[in-house]
């Protein structure tokens, strides 16, 4: 796909949510030697991570985020026309996680709801789908939820992932522009399925539902291949999006990278000629939380927000699939940006 655009909807609010349990990689080395951990922390930049318990799911994190954003905006749940849940860590194979959250939020039976099964690239994809719906007639308000709990599928002895992942959820409240506007959001969305085996959770699905090898219930990542993919794909993604939108690198206020690995992000921004000040990092405090690391970095990346104009953000997601995408959007000064810790007893089941 070439770069495409939609009429710009309005971001009214973004809330991120993480589980309360925090692990300091340097203090809880698990199965690894401290020297080894030190090297990983230095390279990947992951000092602390928030870990979901066995009872905490992506749905719970997104539910808490959604409740916060609805409350902050004083939006009646019945006014939500569309709920999009982006996740690869659903509660069940069926029903879709969106339906579980729909019930917990008490949304209307007039609300369209569906899941999008994407990971690291999920936020740009989700924004693209939401903004396309909002530019059509009938949809006024949409909630885009994006949550992942990758720590629940990473093996504690796998050095490639065990110290890297954190868990997070998010809710983004979007509203159709109330009057005709010439503002646009730009998107570039891509896939290379030939790299599917480079980041895969091989067991538990219907291809191999009850694998004999217990390791197949945990994620496998070929870090070198994923790094090659990132080097090859992300720079053209940035350049193509900017070219289509007619913007220069300098006109972007912030580049919000999927927080995959600090070393990789810094390598990319050096290659792209983007100053570090325009690239907020949250991986040190939250680890790599998959695709939700993008909205998490919007809320926790210490973005300087001038009161008199919107921020222009280039959002970048890339990874499992292999799938990658960008979203060039604006964050209005009035948008509510919050971050919450998952409260006790805030689960889609109503039980803690």
């Amino acid at each position, binding site marked *: 796909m070439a770069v495409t655009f939609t009429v710009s909807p309005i971001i009214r609010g973004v809330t991120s949510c993480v589980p309360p349990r925090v692990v300091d990689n340097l203090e809880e080395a698990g199965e690894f030697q401290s020297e080894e951990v030190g*090297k*990983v922390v230095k*390279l990947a930049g992951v000092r602390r991570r928030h870990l979901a318990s066995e009872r905490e799911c992506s749905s719970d994190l997104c539910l808490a985020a959604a409740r916060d954003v609805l409350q902050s905006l004083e939006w009646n749940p019945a006014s939500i026309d569309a709920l999009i849940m982006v996740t690869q860590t659903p509660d069940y194979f069926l029903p879709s996680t969106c339906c579980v959250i729909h019930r917990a939020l008490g949304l209307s039976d007039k609300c369209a709801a569906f899941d999008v099964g994407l990971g690291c690239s999920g936020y740009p994809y989700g924004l693209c789908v939401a903004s396309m719906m909002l530019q059509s007639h009938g949809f006024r308000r949409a909630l885009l939820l994006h949550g992942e709990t990758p720590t629940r599928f990473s093996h504690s002895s796998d*050095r*490639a992932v065990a110290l890297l992942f954190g868990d997070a959820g998010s809710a983004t409240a979007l509203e159709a522009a109330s009057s005709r506007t010439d503002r646009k959001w730009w998107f570039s969305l891509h896939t290379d399925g030939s790299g599917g085996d480079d980041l895969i959770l091989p067991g538990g699905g219907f291809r191999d539902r009850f694998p004999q090898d217990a390791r197949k219930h945990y994620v496998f990542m*070929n*870090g*070198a*291949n994923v*790094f*090659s993919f990132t*080097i*090859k794909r992300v720079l053209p993604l940035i350049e193509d999006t900017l070219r289509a939108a007619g913007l220069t690198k300098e006109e972007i206020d912030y580049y919000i990278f999927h927080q995959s690995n600090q*070393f*990789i992000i810094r*390598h990319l921004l*050096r*290659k792209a000629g983007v100053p570090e000040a325009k690239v907020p990092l949250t991986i040190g405090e939250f680890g790599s939380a998959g695709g939700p690391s993008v909205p998490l970095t919007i809320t926790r990346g210490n973005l300087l927000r001038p009161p008199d104009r919107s921020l222009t953000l280039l959002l970048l997601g890339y990874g499992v699939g292999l799938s990658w995408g960008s979203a060039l959007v604006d964050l209005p000064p009035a948008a509510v940006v919050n971050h919450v810790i998952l409260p006790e007893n805030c689960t889609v089941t109503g039980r803690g």
Partner: protein
Amino acid sequence: MTQEEALDWIAELFEEPREKITPETDRKAIPAWDSLGVLTLMAALDEKFNIILSDKDVRGMEKVADLLQILRRNGKPT
């Protein structure tokens, strides 16, 4: 880039004494050339030479000579 310059660069990259690095040096003899070191190497190759390693390249690197071969193949005579 001459072979000597390439060896200088590899020694500096993996923080090893220059005299330890020859084409015959085994990857296992270079502690920093572990799975994390591969990422450092990949980033350095991309940044300095615009070389992106393939999966086959990464799997095939056992000695310094293999890395020199990759440089040669990408038009960086060593």
